[in-house]
Structures are given as structure tokens and as C-alpha cells.
């Protein structure tokens, strides 16, 4: 018997979910909550195996609520049941500790499956969300200034830090010197740097270039 709690501010949804569990055998709905505070209280007081949580309830943002629940009951699997189809929601929910993410329109078909999965300590996520999570784990720090550069800007950045002069870059890329200097100004602006020396310093620090005198 899996004890399930439902947190959703919409009565019709709660009723629908309850019906799904009623139809299936081996599940018991042990509590319902319609807002964040009630949910937290429910989690604290009731003995629950799986919490089915709507991310858009009044009182507190869904992400914050998951964080709070996970802080209080780290072992409680939280299955997010959301109206939002966008993967960003799923990724954020998983990242803050949710065990699974299910859109409401899939609930009718997938809810039992999902609850089974998360109750066994496993994740319930779609393959694309999994991929995205994997990508984010591997990704370098997104906030690095040179990531802001466009392809062309990065190309010119590489040439500048390699010690090439404006006119050489212009000739190499078939651009006018004026355009090159405009690019350079944009690069400096985007990377919040004052001059070419700072760019070269940054490039060496981040392993983006070998200085001309070492090459």
C-alpha cells in the first residue's frame, strides 16, 4: 500500500487524481492540501510515501516549496504534477530535489506509473529533461564573459588576443578597419574590459589563447 498525499489548489484536479488512485489498487490518498502552508503541515504531520505537488499554488513559489519540503523531509519523494509543459519547470524542479515531473494532461495515463517509480526511490522524468540535466551538469560556467560573445566577436577576440593588429584582422576577415574597431569596442563592452591588455590577460587565464611571445 502506497500512501499518497495530494497538494493542489484546484479541487477538480484533486478529485481527478483521487479517482485515479481509487481506480487502481494498492494506493491510499492520505491527505490533501490546497496551499503551500497546508502542504507543509500535511508533510510534517501525515505519514506519506509520495507527495504529489502542484508547482503553482498560492502562498509560495513551487520551487521554494519543494526546497522547503526537501529540507524538512529529505527522504520524501516529491512528484511534481504541473500544468506547465515546459521542460524548464521540470529541470528546475528536479534540481531542487523533486523526484519526478509530470504534466497534468499526462496524469490520467502516467500518474500510477510515475508514483510507483518515485516511491521506489527512482526518478520519473522524460528523456529530454534527463538530457538537459546531463548537459547542465557538464556545462562550463555559463557566466563567463567570453560566452557572451557572438561567433564573429569571438573570432575577432581570438585574433586580438593573438596579438594581431586591427588592420591585419580587417584584411584577414575582409572587413573595413572601422568595422573591426567597432567589433573591438563591442567585445570590450561585453566583457567589461578597458583595453586589449585586459583581454589578453583574460584569454591566458581562461586558456583561450597562447600569447604571441610564447607561440
Amino acid at each position: 500500500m502506497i500512501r499518497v498525499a495530494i497538494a493542489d489548489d484546484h479541487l477538480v484536479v484533486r478529485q481527478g487524481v483521487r479517482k485515479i488512485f481509487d481506480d487502481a489498487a494498492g494506493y491510499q490518498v492520505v491527505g490533501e492540501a490546497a496551499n503551500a502552508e497546508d502542504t507543509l503541515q500535511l508533510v510534517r504531520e501525515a505519514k506519506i510515501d509520495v507527495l504529489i505537488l502542484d508547482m503553482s499554488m498560492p502562498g509560495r513559489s513551487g520551487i521554494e516549496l519543494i526546497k522547503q519540503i526537501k529540507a524538512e523531509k529529505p527522504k520524501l519523494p516529491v512528484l511534481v504534477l504541473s500544468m506547465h509543459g515546459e521542460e524548464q519547470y521540470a529541470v528546475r524542479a528536479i534540481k531542487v530535489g523533486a523526484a519526478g515531473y509530470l504534466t497534468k494532461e499526462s496524469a490520467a495515463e502516467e500518474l500510477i506509473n510515475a508514483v510507483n517509480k518515485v516511491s521506489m526511490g527512482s526518478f520519473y522524468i522524460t528523456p529530454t529533461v534527463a538530457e538537459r540535466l546531463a548537459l547542465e551538469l557538464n556545462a562550463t560556467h555559463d557566466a563567463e564573459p567570453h560566452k557572451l560573445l557572438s561567433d564573429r566577436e569571438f573570432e575577432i577576440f581570438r585574433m586580438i588576443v593573438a596579438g594581431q593588429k586591427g588592420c591585419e584582422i580587417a584584411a584577414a576577415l575582409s572587413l573595413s578597419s572601422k568595422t573591426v574597431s567597432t567589433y573591438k569596442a563591442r567585445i570590450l563592452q561585453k566583457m567589461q574590459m578597458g583595453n586589449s591588455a585586459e583581454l589578453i590577460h583574460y584569454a591566458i587565464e581562461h586558456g583561450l589563447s597562447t600569447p604571441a611571445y610564447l607561440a
Partner: protein
Amino acid sequence: MAIALNARLSKEFWVSVALPLLVLALVVVGVLAYVHVSARNLTRSNIANDLEAIVRLKAGQIEQWQAERGDDANLIITRQFSTDLQQWLAGGRRSRQMEQRLRAQLEFFGASHYFALSLRSPVDGRILLTTNSHPDLPDLPPIRAQAVACVKSGMPAFGDLHVRKIAGGMMTTTGLFTPVRDAAGVQILAVLHLILDPEELLFPLLQTWPGVSASAETQLLRREGDEVVFLNKLRHHSAAPLQLRLPLATPQFIAARVIQNGNGFYEGNDYRGMPSLAYGMAVAGTHWYLIAKIDTAEVAARLNAVMTYSAILLAIMLLASAWWLIERRRKEQALLAALAESEDLYQNAACGYHSLDRECVFVRINDTELRMLGYDREELVGKKRIQDLHTPESLRRFKEHYPHFIASGQVRDLEFEFLRKDGSVLPVLISASMVRDSAGRYLMSHTTVYDISERKRAEQELAAYTERLHQLSTHLQTVREEERARVARELHDELGQLLTALKIDIVRLRGQAPADTAMTTQLAEMTALVDQTIASVRGIAADLRPIMLDELGLKSAVEWLSEDFAKRYAHISFKLACALDDCKVEGEQATAAYRIIQECLTNVVKHAQASKIHVAIGVRERRQLHISVQDNGRGLQQHGGQGGFGLLGMRERVSALGGSLDVSSMPGEGVVVDVVISLAQVDGGGAVR
């Protein structure tokens, strides 16, 4: 006013032009009269001198001529001639041979020079011997008497002029009587008579006149009883020599007075009765008087000609002076009028004028500026410096600009604030140029001062109005955004949840229904329809406003936006660089950032024909959000709609948040939109620095 001016000018004209001209004319006339009198006197004295000189010259020539004739006689009367004559006379004048010798001697000497030579009897003057057997040769009683007189005086004597009838007219003769003595020189044997034709030398001598004159002539005359006889051929009378006579008792005639009064200058009538100037003198050794004369009229004519030319010249000079005076007067008046006009322009110009010296003290100032400032001229000129009129803030700017003015010599369109006398502030626009002396040293400034309080007020009103428009625009955008968010949420939450519940029921029905029946199929279709409806609701809601923006923040929303975009426009390569770090961008800033990126993407799709889009979002020092959207499309010139309301809306959003938005385009390199939004509002609670 114009009429009064004219009247004044007219009176001035009389005083300054007509009167001096009148005086000048009177002076000229007086001078002319004086010159005329003195010139006449001078001319008369000159003429008198000339006439006297001529008379003396001619008298001298006559005497010379007479002396030469005497020499001729002495050449003839040799000792041999006297001896021959004595023998011939002693022989009773019968010796033909001796007569021939005597005649030959006479002819040898005289035939070429004289009309005739004759020897006359010392007793009665009759002709003893003559070289000319002309039948008309005169042997008149007066000549015989003269011959006898000569014998009596024993000295050679000139005979007078005589006239006689000859065949075909009259003939005038004169002659020299010389006594011929015997060899011993005691007894006078005969008188040698040299007969001269005055036409040959004497008359031509008299009739020549030095220089050209229409009336001048020389007259030779003598007294015969109570009459004056003119001896030579006269210039203005047809009478032959010795034919014209005048009574001596007619003092109006110069000729009569000369004979009575002797040598001297005379003014009177000539023989024609014409007023004349003359000099008369007696010719020595004769009974003749010589007169040189010229008509007074001719002299006067010469003088008059000179005077006329002088008068014309003076008249021309007078006219020239008049013209010059009037012209000068006219110019002076024009200048005065121009001065008055420029003074009026200066004083009552639409703008203020003032000039400052080196120390910035007022040198002069026009009425307009005085009215602007509320000062009297006496309070400023020479007393106040321009610095005294500036407000403190304005003075600071004045001190900034002043060195530039000194260096360049001019400044243009500077805005300052003056303090009026009553303490109120007068915003002004100033342009100034430097006036230098010939050595290039600073003399004074020429400054124009425009009262721009109206403009300032209009600017302020415009700024206030613009600000209200901005507020309205921001408000409208906020309201619209809120409205969209509300509707999106309603759709998403309420409708979405209901559809979810509906779907659960349908799926449950499907589970309860017998398999593979029409009902199952229908329920499956219904499920699909509900899924479709949910997707549709979700799409509509997201288009209105992504709820994610509020729930997950900007980064997620932009990521979703870019994924959505990439799905819709697979032909455009989309790159998103989002360096938001942990910094939260929320509320208005997040909305603005999201909307701006959305608008840029829309523009690129609509206009740019780009194949690449690069969106970069970064936060600087947790204070500034930097968004950059680049494409590689056609560039801005070809983007017809880029300058439209889309861009304007973006600008409004950004400026409402105290940020900046730059759109730049490099031809062939696409468009770059750079947006910087300050995040200080979130941290600092509203104040935008």
C-alpha cells in the same frame, strides 16, 4: 516725424549749403570786378608802353633813314664833283661835256636808290640839272623855296612830303636838300636834291606793325596852317597820302592834340572818330609827328575775352563747389539718417546688445537689454561687471567659457542665467565677438543677448509633457502586461485545471468502457481533443505572457523563448549566451528584458532575412543587465520597420527603467541591439542613479 525731419533738414540745407554758396558767389563777383579794373589799368599801361616803344622805334628808324640819305649826298659831293660843277657853272652851263660828266656822276651814285637826283640853283631853286627827264618831274614852288632855305641855312635839310598829279594818279615825293660848295668850301654853288619815293621805304616802314592787330597803325602827320595833314597812306581811310586833313581846333582828335601838346600818351578819337589809345611824338629833324595807335575797342575786346574766360572758369568752379557742397550735405544727411537708424536699431533691437571692456565692465548697453534686466543705463555702464549679473551657477560656466572667448575671439549660443535688478532669474542665450584695435589688442566685446525665458518655459513644459507621456506609456505597458499576465494565468490555471480534470474523467471512462468498441474510439478521440485544447490554451497563455517569467525567472523564460523560436524558425541558427549567474532579475526589469528580446526576434524574422541570431544576456556587478541581440541580416537601412513603434516601444521600456538602448548596423554585418538596464531599482528601492 518724417515731415518734421524734412523741414529741419530743409532749413539746415539753406543754412549750410545755399548761404555759403551765395557768399562765395558774391566774393567771386567782387574779385572779378576788381580783377577787371586792375587788369584794364594794367593793360592800358602796357599798351601805352608798347605804343611808345613802337613810336620811338619807328622815329629812330626814320632818323636813321634820313642820316643814311645824308651819307649818300656826301658820297656824291666829292672835290672833283665841286670842281666840275664850278667849271660848268662858270662856263655858263654851256659845256655839254661837263654836263655829261656831272650827270654821269649823279647817275652813278643815285639812280639805283633814288627816284631822281637834281642840282638846283642856290638863287631861286630852279633845276639846273636832273637825272630824270620825266615830264612829270616836279619843280613845284615849295620845293624851290626849300632849296633856297637850305642855301640860307647852309646845312643839309630834308624836304617835306609833297604830292603832285602825274599821269595815271597822284605821286608823293620827298627829298634831301644838300648845299654843294666850291672846292674851297666857301661859296655855295648849287643845292643837290635827292628825290625819294616814300612808297619805297618810308611808307612800308610806317605800315609794318609788330604783332597782330585789327586796328593798330602808325600815322605820320604834320601841321599845315590850322590843319593837320596825314602824310602816309592810312589803314582805315581810302584817301591818298596828304589828302586827309583835320582842323587843328578839334581836341577830340588825337592827331590835333599831339601837334598841339607834343610827346605823350593820348586817349581820344582817331581820324574815323573811333575811340583809340595812342602815343604821339615829334620826329626829330623834321616837321613830322608820328602816332602809334590802337582802337580802345580792340584792347577792351582782348581784356573782355580774358575776363570772360576767367568768369566762365570761376562760374564752373562755383558750380563745382555748389555740387560738392550739396553732395557732401546729402551724404552727411544720409549718414546722419543711417546713424539715427542704426542707433534706433541698436537701442530697440529684438535682442539685447552690450559691450564690455577688458575688465568685463559695461561699456555700453542697449535699451532692450536694460528693459530685460530692469536696470538703468547709469547703474551699469562703467559701474558693474558682467560677473555681477550672473547667477552663481551661471558664473561658473561663464568662467569656463571666458578663456575660450579671449583665445578665439568669439563664442556662440551659450546659455547663461542673469539676475534682474529685482532678483529674478533671466535665462539668456549669448553670442559674443571681440572688437580689436588696429594693433590687434582687445578693445571691447560685442555681445548679443536673447531672452530665452519663453523658450525655457516651453522647454520645461515640453519636458513635463514628454515626461507625462513617458509615464502614460509606461503605465499603459504595465497595465497591459498585468492584464496579459492575469489572463494568461486564468487561462492556464483555471481552464487548464478544468481540462485536466476532464481528461482524467475521459481516460477513466475509457478504462471502464468495453475494449474495442465505438465508444472506446470516441473516448480516445476525445482524449486527443482535450490534449489539443490544453496545448492550445498553453500556447495562448504563453503568447500573452510566459508565466515562467514570474515563476522561474528571466533565464528560464529566455531559454524557453529561444527554444520555441528555434522550433518555429528552424532555418535560423540561434545562439543564446545567458550569463545571469545567480543574480535574480525580476519584475519590471525581467519583463522589459524578455519583451525586448521577443521584439528583437520578431524584427529579425520580419525584416532582417538573417540566418544567424546571437542573443547575449549578462549582468555586470549585479547592477546592470546587458542584453545584446545580433543578427547577420541585411542591416538597418533595409529594415523598413525597425524604426517603427516596435523600436519606440523598446526605447520607452528601457528609458522608463533608466537604461539605454543602442541600435547599430554595420552594412552586411546585420543589426546589433544593445540594451543596458539598471538593476539598482530592485536593490536600491527605486532610485535610479
